[in-house]
């Protein structure tokens, strides 16, 4: 069974500082990996995704993530955070070949931005 672990429930970062959110997954085959962001009272918006190829993927809003198969990780990074980045971030793993089982989500990391 697939699973996702986001070790950090809360992270506080100063505005302008760099950010790294951790994600570890467990999946028997080549995973499809995603990062979603959820602003308060909103639905989930896709930040970026990894299906295959280059292990460093670029997303929207200046985010990037790196797939490391040896570490079963897919950490999200941003060089300089903005106050508007305060939100809940979810890492997810999906089944290759179709959404038969949907996505398995981590429990989320709540990002707080200090002025």
């Amino acid at each position: 069974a697939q699973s996702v672990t986001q070790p950090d429930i809360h992270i506080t970062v100063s505005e302008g500082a760099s950010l790294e959110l951790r994600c570890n997954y467990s999946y028997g085959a080549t995973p499809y990996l995603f990062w979603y962001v959820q602003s308060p009272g909103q639905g989930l918006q896709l930040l970026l995704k990894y299906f295959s190829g280059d292990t460093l993927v670029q997303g929207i809003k200046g985010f990037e993530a790196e797939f490391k198969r040896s570490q079963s990780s897919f950490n999200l990074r941003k060089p300089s955070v903005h106050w508007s980045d305060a939100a809940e971030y979810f890492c997810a793993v999906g089944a290759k070949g179709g959404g038969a089982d949907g996505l398995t989500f981590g429990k989320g990391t709540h990002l707080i931005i200090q002025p």
Partner: protein
Amino acid sequence: DAGITQSPRYKITETGRQVTLMCHQTWSHSYMFWYRQDLGHGLRLIYYSAAADITDKGEVPDGYVVSRSKTENFPLTLESATRSQTSVYFCASTLGQGVTEAFFGQGTRLTVV
């Protein structure tokens, strides 16, 4: 481009009542999903559907019923609401075969009193 819409956005209901949450998508995506989001649990899959008239259970299906008579609609019914079903419910869809990027609705916040 309406995308995927959920209704209502907010709902308060009493224990024991039946309530239906609606989900409609305009992309003709094959797969549709219902998740519930609870503090400390992230998102958990309730039911999913691979196509019209094909549905299957997810991780937490008890107390819920779904149907999919048309590709674009995927309603979720709580047959007899309980307080433990107080949650935020998200509907999602994916194109299907070979593609698993999911698009989410805005969510329905359900409170059972």
